[in-house]
């Protein structure tokens, strides 16, 4: 057995488990937790294109989630357009906004970029919270928008059970992972990496760092907005304080940083570790120990930054490789 073969088998096994889970897990609560886990893994993977590969720290990505959620919801409630079409429309609006944000900010150094993205995010949240209508579009300001669960069906992106949502977000996650894998091995990925590590040196080699980052930001905002539509259709209620919130932006960044920014597996590892902590502590301790999961997040984040600044994917993949090498040695003998 070669290493590649083992890797492939493990991947197929992983996919097989992921696709068959709803056959065993009948509890709606646990399916809900898994769906949110994939949702966060998806968001973090999209974030990682900018925050990980490009080496800057965006802290306002919830804006794109919000744009995706609001665009598809308004289009479907007021004009009867299928959320699937709204999803694409929202993604393109987010892409344009992402480019507008990126053009002036991407040249900034570390902290300035983080602050600028926070200000963008919060500024847009404040506006959405205070606007009732943009022309004919009803945004509903601070009250948020409720989606009446009347017309279920694939065209309406609305289902009675949780299983369809599970498969939709799983497929979305697999697609976005494949995409980041391909990007990380493309010219763009190498440009981003070089620009993230040593911007001056990369530029001296003739790499257009700003252009590479702009492309990454455009792709990232596009992908993030797609998940926004999914979130709106899954929870059937969107509110500026949930989809545009600073907390959501920070949670995405936390998962990526703990899992390992700039690696394909990092977001998955981060989400696998942190989401259950968050959900389970909310279920079991939510009433008498509020905010416990956020204390754990903060502590884990600090410990990871102190001892594994490249994230938990590094030691985990080292262990994984060692086990495989031992296996190969054994079979060779």
């Amino acid at each position, binding site marked *: 057995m070669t290493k590649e073969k083992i890797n492939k088998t493990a991947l197929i096994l992983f996919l097989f488990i992921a696709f068959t889970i709803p056959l065993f897990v009948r509890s709606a609560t646990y399916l809900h937790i898994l769906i949110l886990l994939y949702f966060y893994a998806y968001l973090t993977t999209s974030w990682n294109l900018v925050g990980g590969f490009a080496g800057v720290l965006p802290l306002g990505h919830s804006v794109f989630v919000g744009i995706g959620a609001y665009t598809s919801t308004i289009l479907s409630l007021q004009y009867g357009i299928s959320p699937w079409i709204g999803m694409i429309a929202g993604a393109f609006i987010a892409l344009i906004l992402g480019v507008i944000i990126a053009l002036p900010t991407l040249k900034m150094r*570390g902290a300035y970029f983080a602050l600028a993205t926070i200000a963008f995010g919060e500024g847009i949240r*404040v506006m959405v919270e205070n606007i009732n209508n943009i022309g004919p579009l009803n945004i509903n300001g601070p009250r948020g928008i409720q989606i009446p669960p009347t017309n279920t069906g694939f065209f309406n992106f609305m289902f009675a059970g949780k299983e369809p949502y599970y498969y939709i977000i799983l497929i979305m996650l697999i697609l976005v992972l494949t995409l980041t894998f391909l990007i990380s091995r493309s010219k763009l990925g190498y440009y981003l990496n070089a620009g993230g590590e040593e911007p001056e040196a990369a530029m001296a080699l003739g790499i257009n760092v700003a252009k590479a980052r702009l492309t990454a930001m455009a792709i990232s905002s596009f992908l993030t907005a797609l998940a926004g539509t999914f979130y709106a259709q899954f929870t059937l209620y969107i509110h500026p304080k949930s989809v545009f919130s600073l907390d959501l932006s*920070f949670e995405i960044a936390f998962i990526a940083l703990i899992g390992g920014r700039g690696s394909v597996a990092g977001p998955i590892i981060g989400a696998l570790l942190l989401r259950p902590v968050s959900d389970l502590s909310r279920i079991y301790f939510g009433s008498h*120990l509020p905010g416990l999961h956020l204390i754990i997040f903060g*502590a884990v*984040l600090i410990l990871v930054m102190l001892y594994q600044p490249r994230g938990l994917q590094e030691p985990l993949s080292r262990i994984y490789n060692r086990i495989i090498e031992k296996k190969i040695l054994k079979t060779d003998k």
Partner: protein
Amino acid sequence: MIYLIEDIINGILMGSIYGLTALGLTVIFGVLKVINFAHGSLLMVGMYVAYWIITATGIHPYIALFIAAPIMFFFGYYLQDIIIKPIFKAEKNVREPITVIIVTTGLWYILDNLTLLIFGPQYRSIQDNALKGAMLEIGEIFISVPKLCGAITAVITALAIYLFFQKTKTGRAVRATSIDRETASLMGINQYKIYNIAFGIGTAAAGIAAVTLVPFYNIFPTVGVLFDIKGFIIVVLGGLGSILGAMLGGIIIGLIESVGPQFMSSTWTEAIVYGLFLLVLFIKPSGLFGIKQDW
């Protein structure tokens, strides 16, 4: 017209207090070259410290200042020493370590939620203090006494920090480290101890700001977030690392917030603040007045 004058005066007073809340941020940035994302949370901790001192002993809020500020200094000193210093040591050659920003964000989450866990989400305020609701009447203009006291304290604190950096030996060591850490440590300055001191001074400034706020402001676990983001905006408007800039930036925000509602709904003033911030960030990242580090 009289209302406009009253709003302008109140805006300047509240703005000076905003400047005081951002003062620590600018001092810490000046020396450590990182933006302390936990600054609002330190302010929140300071507010709880002040609250408990005042309610437990019943002393005048401004006497509590002399107990709260030293407590906050040591809190900041050891926070930097235990949690942030190891990262500086690990990333010695990085000029502006992004990891430190991330760690202070982690601190923010821990401090806010630990407070929520221990003291609960309810709003607290100090009911029977000498300053609550006190008003100064000059002709037809009403001025809030606690805000006036806060503004005076802000100016005194800013001057005191400036003089400390200019006139004392430790202050000179801090300035030397801020200008060039390598050369400073070659001159026999222990740069990590200077970081601790700078962080302590920044936290003590947040503590002083907290004491000026508690007589008229509600205290709750997430109160820091409001001042956190406001603080970022203030220091960027005024020029990161500048003491005068922090005070001026604070006054600008205070004026927009108090005069703005005369012309538009008060929520829009918030959007204007963010807009102004982004504009300055894009066009003149060195701040509105282009003040460099001035201490």
